[in-house]
């Protein structure tokens, strides 16, 4: 059915805050959520009493080691005595939380909503990756003892095969993002590395090598959404959420074309339609695609219709996605450079757009006064795309 575009209530991002992303934080999950929430409130001069509802994002409970983890985090996220909702779509949760918040405000029920994403992966022993065993089908896949890296390696290999790509073509993403992160005060893995460093790093699950992969992290991010009237009262520089979109593909991931993220395209088309965007390549000035692995950024740029199929690596090599390029991609440093506390990492991308579009990104600032940006996350069994388009 067509979207009833007319009359949608306008929603803006008016504040944002985040903690550092670190391998292991001393703070508890609740404390991380509190710090990010507090910073977001302070950034726009609001008090918790001004917040009508709280939306929370956190990926599997298995990381934090708490069943009903949303309830556990509710106190730290400022939800005491408030309407509180935790929604999730795996790795796509960070951007989805903003989508969820958008519906809260757009419904007309709330004027200001706090969106908080937190992940404390270090609680999970012996290694956070072990928690991923339980994302696989309990009957047909888990008995094979699959590693999370398998599915990415399988997808990456298929992508490389389909378009005849080399590891070198893809490694440039890791180089770019880790370099961009040098300018991010929260970054966990900022570094000046070379393509050769990536190609010489430890092979984990060929074609995936150590430096192709984002780290496991602890961290939290929060943003504040407001209705049009409230936003104008709160700040001179609201950043409008122009549209949202998301899509979930079949769980039968071995029955799909792994070389192209069709679900990301569907999510993007939903968002483009809602925002009235006809030519994304021209109308999007800055993009934060989800980059837990280097090839994923390229995959997603193609799915978002910001690069022709199989050609994102060429555009990357030409410098199009550099911070001062034609279409800056992941100027924050992304998951590869800043870190990957899963849901928080997705929300970090929205926060980055907020700062970039307000011209407050400091050394990371993209030149040329970008007016429209797109943040995207992805997750589950290579299955979900979540998209938010922001603009000033």
């Amino acid at each position, binding site marked *: *059915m067509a979207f009833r575009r007319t009359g949608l209530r306008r929603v803006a991002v008016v504040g944002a805050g985040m903690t550092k992303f670190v391998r292991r934080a001393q703070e508890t999950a609740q404390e991380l959520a509190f710090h990010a929430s507090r910073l977001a409130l302070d950034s726009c001069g609001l008090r918790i009493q001004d917040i009508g509802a709280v939306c929370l994002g956190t990926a599997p409970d298995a990381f934090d080691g708490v*069943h009903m*983890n949303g309830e556990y985090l509710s106190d730290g996220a400022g939800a005491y005595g408030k309407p509180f909702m935790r929604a*999730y779509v795996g790795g796509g949760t960070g951007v989805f939380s903003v989508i969820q918040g958008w519906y809260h405000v*757009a419904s007309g029920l709330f004027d200001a909503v706090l969106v908080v994403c937190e992940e404390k992966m270090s609680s999970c022993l012996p290694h956070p990756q072990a928690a991923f065993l*339980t994302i696989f*089908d309990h009957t047909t896949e888990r008995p094979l003892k699959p590693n999370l890296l398998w599915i990415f390696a399988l997808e990456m290999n298929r992508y490389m095969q389909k378009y005849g790509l080399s590891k070198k073509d893809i490694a440039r993403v890791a180089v770019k993002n880790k370099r961009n992160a040098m300018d991010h005060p929260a970054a966990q893995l900022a570094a000046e590395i070379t393509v050769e460093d990536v190609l010489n790093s430890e092979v984990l699950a060929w074609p995936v090598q150590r430096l192709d992969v984002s780290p496991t992290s602890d961290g939290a991010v929060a943003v504040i959404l407001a209705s049009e009237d409230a936003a104008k009262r709160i700040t001179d520089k609201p950043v409008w959420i122009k549209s949202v979109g998301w899509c*979930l593909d*079949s769980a039968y991931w071995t029955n799909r074309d792994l070389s192209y993220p069709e679900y990301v395209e569907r999510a993007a088309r939903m968002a483009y339609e809602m925002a009235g965007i006809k030519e994304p390549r021209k109308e999007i000035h800055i993009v934060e695609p989800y980059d837990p692995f280097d090839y994923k950024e390229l995959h997603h740029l193609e799915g978002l219709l910001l690069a022709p199929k199989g050609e994102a690596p060429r555009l990357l090599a030409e410098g199009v996605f550099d911070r001062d390029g034609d279409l800056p991609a992941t100027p924050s440093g992304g998951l590869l450079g800043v870190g990957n506390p899963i849901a928080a990492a997705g929300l970090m991308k929205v926060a980055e757009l907020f700062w970039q579009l307000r011209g407050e990104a400091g050394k990371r600032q993209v030149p040329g006064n970008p007016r429209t940006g797109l943040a995207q996350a992805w997750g589950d069994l290579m299955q979900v795309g979540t998209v938010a388009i922001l603009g000033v």
Partner: protein
Amino acid sequence: MQKQMAIVGVGYSGFSSISPGLSYKELMYEAAVRAYQDAGIDPRQDADGFVTVAEDFHEGTSIFDEYVPDQLGAVMRPVHTVTGDGIHGLIAGALKILSGAMNIVVVEGHSKASNILTLSQVTAYALDPIYNRPLGLNPYSIAGLEMQRFLHQTKNTVEQCARVVVKNRRNALNHPSAGHGSDISLEDVLASERVASPLRKLDIAPHSDGCVVFVLASADAARDLTPQPIWIRGMGWSNGSYSLEQRNWAHADYARQAAQMAYHQAGVEKPHDEIDFAEIDDTFSYKELQHMEALELCGEGEAGRMIDEGATQPGGSLPINVSGGSLGVGNLLEASGLQRVLEVVLQLRGQASARQLKNVETGLAFAWRGLPTASGAALVLSR
């Protein structure tokens, strides 16, 4: 809210102690097919979005939302999961319609409680890992603490709590899908095994498997689809304190806040007079009484008297849990709230067969998320 959105389709599967014949996907498929048939929609063509409710540790699968699209007709569509009660999920769906961005939204919740072999250990895993878990207490002890304080402060009695069990289990005998209907006596309840005093075994709702699916629609779509839309007039949800150290043990503040929000939207000023019947959380017997007071269906300390007088019986002035509630139908984990909404819809449609109430216009459904939470959600529905 004035008739902005409605429930236009319901489907369910269950509710019984075990369901070995169907996988969770097949259970969901069965309920979804029925809901779409009831609403007269094809989910592949007509549904704009889908919401499911699930907790990873109840499913035994991390990021369980992966496994929901196929059996709901939601492949390649906007679908997400809420970790909340089914009413939280229903509200998440309703927000999408209220925003004006969607016309038809599907909401699903299910329970395969029988597949969880270590349910009480899983529940304990929801406790604060630093302050509470190391004490090694059975989570039912939290209910014992709360029941004790609630009874002490409100002067309601354990006998009155037991009467709730007798009522709801008997009500379930008139519900062909209820898993735990029985004709038990007050003495049976009061003589049942102590679990966490004053809580006894029969004060606790047993678990059931099942699935409930709803189709929600905007006002225009609803009028096109059905002559009998059930309007969502108000919805509210709220969290009390997760921390056991700071909790309000006597009163369900989350329920009061959720209800006030829903009543305000619905324009309900005197709940006792304006709500014709209610399906409210009775995961434990005392919870029905505690929630009645928090939901302002009676004053503080009056819930016990109401059950003594039979006011909450199916023939009384304010029937509560005519379906049998969780005590009679079974605790359906995240789907519990949806079962309560289902009963309200069936009653308002006049489809509740042997347990049909007469002349009901407006009903209330209220869900609590269960141990160890202080989180709840309320829905006011009208014909």
